[in-house]
């Protein structure tokens, strides 16, 4: 159980490529849900990079997309090392039982794509903020109920960095 190296510059950079074998159901589900959560985010961020009017909004969409892609690769590696599926059937059912989560699906992203340029930036930022609140919820679930030290460290950093991102995004949307 080697300790996890602290993050150097972003949540994506310093994640260890290897992961301890010991885990519980929450660890596995957390990683699966983060992957599921990143998938629509990637589509959203791509739209933001191509369609946002403000340069700072396009810039942050690019930065986040890069970080998210790196994290997706690491998490995929961890789940594969464990021999666990990348997608959990339990979580799809649970989403349905939630009566609407996630808020960000293909339909919503298509709707955003049709938004006029005057409203696009605000609409994009609000959707991204809403989506990032979901990441904070997932991370706090893992911090409470997870077991694996690397996964718990990832959750801790996801909680901290995502809330810092939300701070910045809220300032952008309010300003």
């Amino acid at each position, binding site marked *: 159980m080697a300790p996890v190296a602290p993050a150097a510059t972003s949540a994506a950079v310093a994640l260890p490529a290897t992961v301890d074998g010991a885990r519980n159901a929450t660890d596995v589900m957390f990683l699966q849900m983060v992957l599921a959560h990143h998938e629509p985010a990637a589509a959203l961020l791509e739209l933001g990079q191509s369609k946002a009017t403000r340069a700072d909004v396009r810039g942050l969409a690019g930065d986040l997309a890069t970080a998210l892609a790196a994290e997706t690769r690491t998490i995929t590696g961890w789940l594969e090392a464990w021999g666990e599926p990348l997608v959990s059937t339990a979580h799809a059912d649970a989403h349905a039982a939630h009566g609407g989560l996630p808020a960000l699906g293909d339909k919503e992203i298509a709707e955003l794509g049709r938004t006029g340029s005057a409203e696009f930036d605000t609409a994009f930022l609000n959707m991204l903020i809403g989506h990032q609140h979901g990441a*904070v*919820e997932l991370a706090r679930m893992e911090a409470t109920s997870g077991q694996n030290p690397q996964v718990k460290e990832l959750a801790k950093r996801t909680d901290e960095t995502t809330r810092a991102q939300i701070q910045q995004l809220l300032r952008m949307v309010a300003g």
Partner: protein
Amino acid sequence: MRRGITLPLLTVAAIVASLFVAISPAQAHGYISSPASRQAMCAQGRVANCGDIVYEPQSVEAPKGSMQCNGGGTRFAVLNDNSRNWPTTSVGQNVTFSWVLTARHATSTWEYFVGGTRIAVFDDGGRQPAANVSHNVNLGGRTGRITVLARWNIADTINAFYACVDLQVGGGGGNPPPTTQPPAPACGNAWSASAVYTAGALVSHNGRRWQAQWWTQGETPGTTGEWGVWRDQGACG
């Protein structure tokens, strides 16, 4: 022997159970991000010491009908505290309120109040809201500092989501008065290249305050970029 089947089923049950225990209480929801509501002011760090609301500004949920910023009850009472000097946003007579939604509950109405008077209502007729919700509201000639209370009434529960927005309303034309700015805070401890800082640590460097977003050592504030470890907190004196 059925043991080989029983175990995986139990595992699935455990996963589903832990999911509902962990996620369901939040289920999450929405708030006004622009102009910034009180919970948005807390979540973006412009107002300090707000408590748990910084983790879930989207969760100000309470039974319908309250006229309080936290919807009544005991949770998030900080939102009712007018002594907090909530920063205002400068606006004209027509204001577009836009919402962050983290779950799109079927909606009866969206209501906006000033001082106990309902100034606008939008009836969704029980439909699920669009991915992006914004409403244009006319302030009816009100000027000066006002607090708008917004209520998002959910169609299929007894609850609503509450958000208060503090506004400085100009006369319509011309330049609105500047948004209230707190005085520059004291600089405090200078950054040290050898020290270890963890998330939330505050240092000063080159006349500005910086907050660490996570563990760091030997990274100079001002060189780590907008999304880097050191977040600029503005000038200090």
